[in-house]
């Protein structure tokens, strides 16, 4: 059961942070930074939600989650190469980006099912072996990607239609970031709908609460779990593709670099909680953007400080899952 109180408090905290920053930063940079923070939050959320879900459902901690992010980014880049650059015309270019996301989705899913079968399944119930073996899996996937794509940086440009900014008054809002916010909200509401309005979601939530009981009622929790694992890795793949398009330049370490933010988000949000993941992604990304603008040298430790403060306040994370 997710407590209403926690959601209200956390949202209040985030809104307060955004409002406090308005007079400090001045309206223009405030608007730009807040948008940047929101879009970054959405991307982290898309990447991290799978990891937290998999933990919540099956107590599996996948340290190799970053592998799917890298796989997604490379799948998107291969898709663009396959099509031969972006075609002229808004609709076609957008379609290509959608194609990239789909390629990443499929690649992440395939990677996820292989990962689950080969590495995660033999290590159920033993966190230490799980962490070790999935870390090993991440190393192997990164090296295999290097074998196929060379260790050089990969350039993945956005189509022209998604470059540049929209001018509203004298504030320049980047188009791609706006799109990211929209996509992120879509994914979040999709997940929330899935969890709260469908039978499947009900089963998953029930299995998180009490796996044995759901099994006893005759539902295949294993199958559910594999489905969730593959969905999570597909989402990570999509997130990786979107992240790569945002940066337009990436190497094989894109996944392990993203893991840093993902860990911070997952721990502060409350391991296993999807809404916790969403809200802590918002908090983390906003703090990261504001601090980097205000005082860059502090940016590395600001997030650690934030995580420490949250853990001292709520050791189970911002929006904890009951029974854990």
């Amino acid at each position, binding site marked *: 059961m997710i407590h209403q109180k926690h959601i209200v408090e956390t949202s209040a905290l985030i809104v307060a942070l955004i409002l406090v920053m308005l007079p400090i930063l001045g309206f223009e940079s405030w608007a730009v930074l807040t948008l940047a923070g929101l879009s970054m939050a959405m991307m982290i959320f898309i990447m991290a939600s799978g990891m937290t879900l998999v933990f919540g459902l099956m107590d599996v901690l996948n340290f190799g989650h970053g592998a799917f992010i890298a796989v997604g980014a490379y799948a998107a880049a291969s898709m663009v190469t396959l099509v031969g650059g972006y075609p002229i015309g808004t609709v076609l270019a957008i379609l290509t980006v959608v194609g990239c996301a789909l390629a990443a989705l499929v690649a992440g899913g395939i990677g996820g099912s292989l990962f689950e079968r080969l590495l995660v399944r033999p290590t159920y119930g033993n966190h230490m072996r799980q962490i070790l073996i999935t870390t090993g899996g991440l190393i192997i996937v990164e090296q295999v990607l290097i074998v196929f794509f060379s260790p050089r940086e990969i350039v993945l440009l956005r189509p022209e239609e998604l470059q540049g900014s929209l001018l509203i008054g004298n504030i320049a809002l980047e188009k791609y970031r706006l799109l990211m916010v929209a996509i992120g909200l879509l994914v979040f509401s999709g997940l929330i709908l899935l969890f709260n309005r469908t039978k499947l979601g009900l089963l998953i939530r029930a299995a998180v609460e009490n796996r044995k009981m759901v099994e006893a009622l005759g539902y295949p929790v294993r199958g559910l779990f594999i489905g969730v694992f593959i969905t999570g890795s597909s989402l990570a793949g999509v997130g990786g593709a979107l992240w790569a398009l945002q940066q337009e330049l990436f190497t094989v370490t894109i996944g*392990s670099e993203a893991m840093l933010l993902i860990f911070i988000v997952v721990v502060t949000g409350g391991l296993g909680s999807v809404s916790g993941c969403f809200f802590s992604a918002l908090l983390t990304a906003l703090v990261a953007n504001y601090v980097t603008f205000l005082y860059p040298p502090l940016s590395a430790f600001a997030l650690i400080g934030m995580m420490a403060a949250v853990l001292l306040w709520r050791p189970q994370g911002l929006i904890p899952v009951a029974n854990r």
Partner: protein
Amino acid sequence: MLNRLLSYDLPRSRLLAVLLAIIFVCLILTPFIFTGTKSLSIAAKICIFVVLVASYDLLLGYAGIISFAHAMFFGIGAYSVAIALERFGTGFTQLFLGMGSGLVIALLFAALIGFLSLRLRTIFFAMITFAVSNAVSVTVIQSYKLTGGEDGLSYNIPQIFKSSYRFLEEPVFGVAITGKLLLYYVVFVCSLVMFLLLLRIANSPFGSVLRALRENEFRTMAIGYAPVLYRTLASCAAASMAAGAGMLSAVWLRYTGLETTMSVDIAIDILLIVVIGGMGSIYGAVLGTVLVIVAQGYLREILIAIGEFFGGWWMTGLFNPDRWLLWLGLLFVLCVYFFPQGIVGWLRKIEADRLIRQQAQS
């Protein structure tokens, strides 16, 4: 006497004992039986890494907590010595001051991280140490005025440790007795002492509490041991040993940079070595380190040969010498699968099986 030195934790396998003895003798005699500076630097690297990996094993194998910040503590030790020697001159006073401050910083960090994250389930420790060590390496790059940033620091060491310093006019057994040789033996003896100390910690009552916590936290708590306290102390002990190894490395290399101390590569190396060598037996660190570091030195040639033998672009890609991490990673995963106790566990199992068979026969 030997038994006492090894804290009554004997190798428990004849083959293991023989291998350890060979490694020990080789490390003592390296300057005299192998020629060239490369073998000496490999031997010194082995000494330093044995301590680093063995201290990691105290956390991973005994306490059962995974840390991704072990390379960070190694780096803290190395950078404290490096900064002291670079900033304040090359005397022994500065060296010892650097060592002392490094130890204090490492202990503070370890205690802070421990009390913050070990209150929660131990899996949080893995994630939080990952985040903290990342933040620290970013900070090291950013504060380039102090740390040299990406370039790292080069500095002088006390005159007595330099290869230009000669103790004897005449070479002994054809080897010149230089400061470099003295430094090698200092590194060797320090590493040996730290290794024996780790063995002592692992086999002390404290080590038993750690193992008990790993096996059954709830029961250990019920007997009256506070998990947070014991795990944090283990983390502090491991961190100080890692920092000590870092100090040795800083003096030996006369250079301290990110890629020799805190890089992801080093962190991965430590993890791979400890698992391949054998978790939960300090001796595993020795076998694993020797295997991996010697392989690192010579695997390149083997991989090139295999790649040329097969031909074909993807084969040369797979057997490219820069892809050795791929093979090490596969070995690592297979180890976690089939030999969770690593090489040492495997050797001990062979010995135990042999004893059982002997008893059955008699």
